[in-house]
């Protein structure tokens, strides 16, 4: 179940490099990309920006902006170019930034929970979709059937509420109980372990 969706309308992209690097990207209909030497120190920066934006405008248009449109009048209608617009905002020999605005908001992420469908169409407890995709365990262990609180469990519960006894039980479980949790010990299928815990910790060794 998806409970939140994140969208963006405009994206600022900045690329930084201390070495010569090139990058290219396209959205929707791919267009040929011309390259320009930004790091040329002998050219005017304003002309560089103008030239780059001209290249980008050509890349997003059905035909180059400087094409002779008059001569082609009456030819096939221009194809519809799908995608957004991109404009060069800043460029140096070490970095380049683009500000791109999309015609329709772009989904960049979502929050969701997975619910296993049980018998009869019932839903199990939720698990994080992200964690499932990442392969990380979110449920703390395999489900165990509740066994009820037997006589030993009923003795451990009030004893556990006394100061310092939780730490004692945890130490005992680490040493003799296979390091299972206290909740598992109390109402899981561990009757023998509960009996031993009562003997060792509450009744005391004889």
């Amino acid at each position, binding site marked *: 179940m998806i*409970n939140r969706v994140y969208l963006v309308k405009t994206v600022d992209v900045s690329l930084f490099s201390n070495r010569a690097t090139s990058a290219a990207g396209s959205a929707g209909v791919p267009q040929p990309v011309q390259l320009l030497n930004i790091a040329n120190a002998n050219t005017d920066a304003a002309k560089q920006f103008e030239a780059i934006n001209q290249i980008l405008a050509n890349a997003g248009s059905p035909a180059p902006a400087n094409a002779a449109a008059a001569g082609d009048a009456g030819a096939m209608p221009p194809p519809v170019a799908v995608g957004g617009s991109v404009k060069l905002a800043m460029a140096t020999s070490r970095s380049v930034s683009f500000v791109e605005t999309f015609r329709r908001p772009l989904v960049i992420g979502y*929050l969701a*929970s997975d619910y296993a469908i049980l018998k009869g169409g*019932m*839903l*199990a*407890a*939720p*698990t*994080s979709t*992200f*964690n499932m995709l990442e392969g*990380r365990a*979110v*449920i*703390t*262990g*395999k*489900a*165990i*059937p*509740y066994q*009820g*609180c037997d006589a030993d469990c009923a003795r451990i*519960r009030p004893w*556990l509420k006394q100061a310092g006894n*939780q730490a004692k039980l*945890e130490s005992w*479980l*680490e040493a003799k109980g296979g*390091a*299972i*949790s*206290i*909740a*598992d010990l*109390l*109402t*899981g299928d561990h009757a023998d372990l509960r009996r031993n815990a009562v003997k060792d910790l509450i009744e005391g060794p004889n």
Partner: protein
Amino acid sequence: MALQPPSPQTNVPRDDAGDVVDAMLLDTRVRWIAIVFNATVNGVDQFTVTPYISDPTSSGG
């Protein structure tokens, strides 16, 4: 060696769910607990109690 996190428990009767949650919360790593209706057996509602150490509704903990 730390104890294992508590396991989910199924078929927990309504009146016992509080005690099971209480025991699960003794583990301070448990941040979330889901209580999902399981079935009604002999007129008693039973639940699955599932502890989480991370937030199941988002990517974070």
